[in-house]
């Protein structure tokens, strides 16, 4: 757990799994693993549902204003997608037109452990997919210079 922000945002967001019907709750216990952690740059912000919204927004603002970053990447997974979009739009609205957004979506593969409750069962794993969003927020140069079109958030 490198950072509070990287705590899986999808936890608790989905009470039931897709296809949970085929799993017998008596035979197996479902344990969700955290999503895979990828190497993190300094300007990556992982949004979660536990931290206060204003705190997360403030952090992004600080990074853009005094943190010296020309661009930041806001990541949201599952339930936190809404919040990530919200943060990005708030940033843009407060930026007096100096900020631009570029959003990318992706699918994250998540792993669930099926732990046997009975002797006969063998433990198994299952994968399911969840959607994620990666929003690049960057400062537009006053000269009209365009920032690179390539979105690094992938």
């Amino acid at each position, binding site marked *: *757990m*490198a950072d509070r922000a990287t*705590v*899986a945002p999808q*936890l*608790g967001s989905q009470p039931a799994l897709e296809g949970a019907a085929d799993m*017998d*709750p*008596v*035979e197996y*216990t479902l*344990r*969700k*693993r*955290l999503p*895979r*952690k*990828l*190497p993190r740059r300094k300007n990556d912000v992982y949004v979660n549902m536990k931290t206060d919204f204003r705190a997360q927004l403030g952090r992004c603002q600080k990074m853009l204003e005094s943190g010296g970053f020309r661009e930041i990447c806001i990541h949201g997974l599952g339930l936190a997608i809404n919040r990530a979009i919200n943060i990005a739009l708030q940033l843009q609205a407060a930026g007096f037109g100096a900020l631009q957004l570029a959003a990318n979506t992706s699918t994250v*593969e998540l*792993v669930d*452990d099926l*732990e*046997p*409750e*009975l*002797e*006969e*069962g*063998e*433990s198994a*794993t299952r*994968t399911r997919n969840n959607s994620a969003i990666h929003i690049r927020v960057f400062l537009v140069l006053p000269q009209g210079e365009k920032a690179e079109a390539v979105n690094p958030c992938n």
Partner: protein
Amino acid sequence: MFKIFDFNFGKEPGGIELRPAMSGINRKEKKYAKKMRNQPSNVIFPSSDPGAGKSGIESIESQSDSDCRNQQNGSHGAYCHQSQGSDRKHLENVPRFLNAKDFAQYRAAEINAMLKAVTHKSNSQFLQSLPPHFRRRAMSKNVKRLPRRLREIANKEMEKIAHLKKEQSKSKSRKARRRHGNLLLEFNRRQRKNIWLETHIWHAKRYHMVKKWGYCLANKPTGKSYRACYRAMTQQCLLQDLSFYCCLELNGTQDNLLKVLAPLSSREAGTTFASVDCLSGKRQGSLVLYKAEQYPEKPLGPITFLWRPRAVSEIHAENRQLWIWAHPALKMDLLTELHLACQCSDDPIPEAAQIDCRTLTQRGTGLKRKLEDKVGEEVIAKKKIIGNSTRAESKPESWVSLTTGIVIIDLTMEILRYRLIGPLSHSAMLEVLQPATVMENCEVTGEVMGARGLPFWWSQYCKKPEDLALHNRQGNFLQLLSGLASPAEISAGSVLGLTVRDPRLNIPENRTRALPDASQLKDLEKVKELSLKGLPAECAQSQIWDQNVRNIVTETKISEQELNQMKSKLLVPGSPLNLGPQESKIPILLVQQPGKMSGKEHIGWGSGWDILFPKGWGMAFWISLIYRGVRVGGLQEGVKHSQYQGIPRFPDDFPDCPAGIRHIEETEKELIDKYKRYPPAKRPNYIHYGTMTPFRCPWQQLVEEWEGKSKAHGLSGKEPELKPEVQISTKNLVGVHERETCMQSPEEDKLSDPEEQMEEDSVVQPKIPNPKDILAESGHVSILRNRRLLKQLSAWCRPTSSRGQQTKQCSQSVQMTTDAVDSSISSYPRFLVWVRLLPLKKGCPIANATICIPSEEDLQLQASDPKNYAPQEPKHRDPFKHQIKILKGRKKRALPEDQKSSSGGQDAKSSANCPKNLTLGLWPDQPQDVISHCSRLTIGYVSQGDFSLNVGRGEALGFVSLLGLLHMLSNQPGDKRGLVLVRNPASLQYRLARINIEV
């Protein structure tokens, strides 16, 4: 015969008089004792304290010369009256008449005694016979500085002193004592009582050591590193030496082993020894053992176990090996229980494995064998002890059962266990553990014996192509593991066997942190597959299971000295040393530790790997791990690790196990002693705070009182409105479980049947007399470990606000849950439930805090002011304070009498005067009525609580009574369900907290 007017009994010819300011009894006593120390026996001092005057004289008289006293008593009637003093009582003691001759005689005797005391100071040195102004510097060293008349005496005295000193002084200088051989002897002597781990010296230089469970263990670092260790666990890597955990090996056919071990565990409490995953050797299993057929009443303690995977060649072999890893506090209980279960005889029978080992070593030159025998057995030998140093030679190490053919071997300290916690443990492991190089020319080296006359097991191992292929596969898997970002990304308890090179050969020059190497990205597809499918069963195979190999590996270890010599002879200094076939190959096992698994937050926190390897190699692996930048934790870090994971820790949190009960008693005694060492004004008066037992949790009284309460009133209140899914699943659970039990073996059936039966019947008549009720009468507390019921409880504890509509819709099903509640009440009357408490706002519960049920007003007020509301307990009256005061006063007055009767019996005094042993601030006797002692009903206690760095606020773990919990839940509204009050033992402030049962 003449009158004496000016005679006062107190005034002696010497004019010595005692007029102390009597402020305290003790001080008075002390002063008196000091005065009397050098006096002859017939010199007495009267007490001039008017209050204690009479008794004082009497008591002093008792110590005076008996003849003298008799005489005075005899002449008592001759004393005349005096009108000098106004105190009549005082005057009564003054004799009226005095025999002048006798009087003068006794005074003369006293004067003589006094002169004797002044001239011959019994415990003084010759120097003190000189008056101070004659004394000169260094007179004690140099006799010639003394006046000549004293020299003779001084010479004698000095000789005497010199003689004494010579006897006392140590025979060896520090330099001699620190010489290697002597130091070893000293170390060996010191580890006869308590076992030292192989890393002991390293730890002793850096950690506070404690003696616990027969070991010397590191408690916490001497430096400040509490938070740094937490950070290491979360973000980097923390290393712990867990070699003190005991390993017991069970050998036998699989069927026999399973049959023998089945009654020790129950399927209700989770998977057992027979679980498919564990049986294949792919996973490490963990469970709580019970005394045979005693589930759920008498647990022994938690263990982890590991089956040896079947080799490819002998896939149908019947004989299996099973390792049971247990805490040392539990070992003896476990061993006796296993002996009973396996019907082992107590006398040892030399079993096959040991004979094999002997024959193997005999092939050597013979010198080695002698040394081998000395290891761990002959303490006086100048040989480093490897393994268990406390084991007596005669004590058996293995036991054979004649009926079942099962062999139990005690492998204490034979296999070392290091624990790595944290996400960087992969990279540290990858750097330290390098797969052994495969022998190319097997034919040649196969014949070569090692330098110490032992065969290289590795060259023989390398001969088999399938083993070689396995070795390569295992190496590949280790590489792949480093592609995982955290140890939690692989299934829980995975096992990987390996054979590695000597870890000392690739130590970096400087201590650097091992970081994951992003540049050489591993095959992502394969990493993904690994994390999905886990490690295959055959990769768990390792030669560490073989005792012969373990012994060879321990014995053929090249010593540090030899290694350094070889290093110094290298042509290019600092270049890696290549030993070729001489290099040791160490078989090891890697076992994944799953970290936090239950609950919703911080899943996978604290996950890591355990490294298991043969004894003797402890420091080699330790230092090379340290050089990879891992941080080292002691017992304290282990406590935090389990606390943040929310799991009970042995033996602290197992009040139902024999080891746990012992531990609780010890800690209570320690804490009470510590409490009593403080002055009364500087310690909390726990009676004022309404805390009856501040240093332990009265589980016994708690469950008994709740049982009595539920019997008297019944717990029927408002029924819990439950979510429909829960009820349905409960029904399902019962059904499926029934189907399950039908398939079980007959003895298992018998165990679980009555409860199942009752579960079914409960709809009709919920309170059927249960056999377990009768068992519970024996007065024992147990902890609920039935996973099905725990899951149900866990669902009940959650608030139902979000699904309020659903509960209204299916009010018909409420009836059924009443039955469920009743059934659990009747089947588990004296049970405790492990809970985790999170304060809603403020508060940091500590150990032994009380968990209470909030009253209805509390809940209402909390709803109106959710931010700040926290009720307070009114201050309690201390009924014993007055008694203690009276006692104290009486003691003061009674002191001189006591001196007469018994010289210094504090205990006798207190026992004679008062029946209770009162201490200010502590409840004196066994607590009564614990649940309703305070203004809120008590349902449980916190067993460990602290500020949790993981959650960022206070967090507590503890037990609540099952009946109390159900009572509380059934009376709470849906959206407030699971709210409790927590109050620390030395505080009146209640804090609201939410209860979580994590399964």
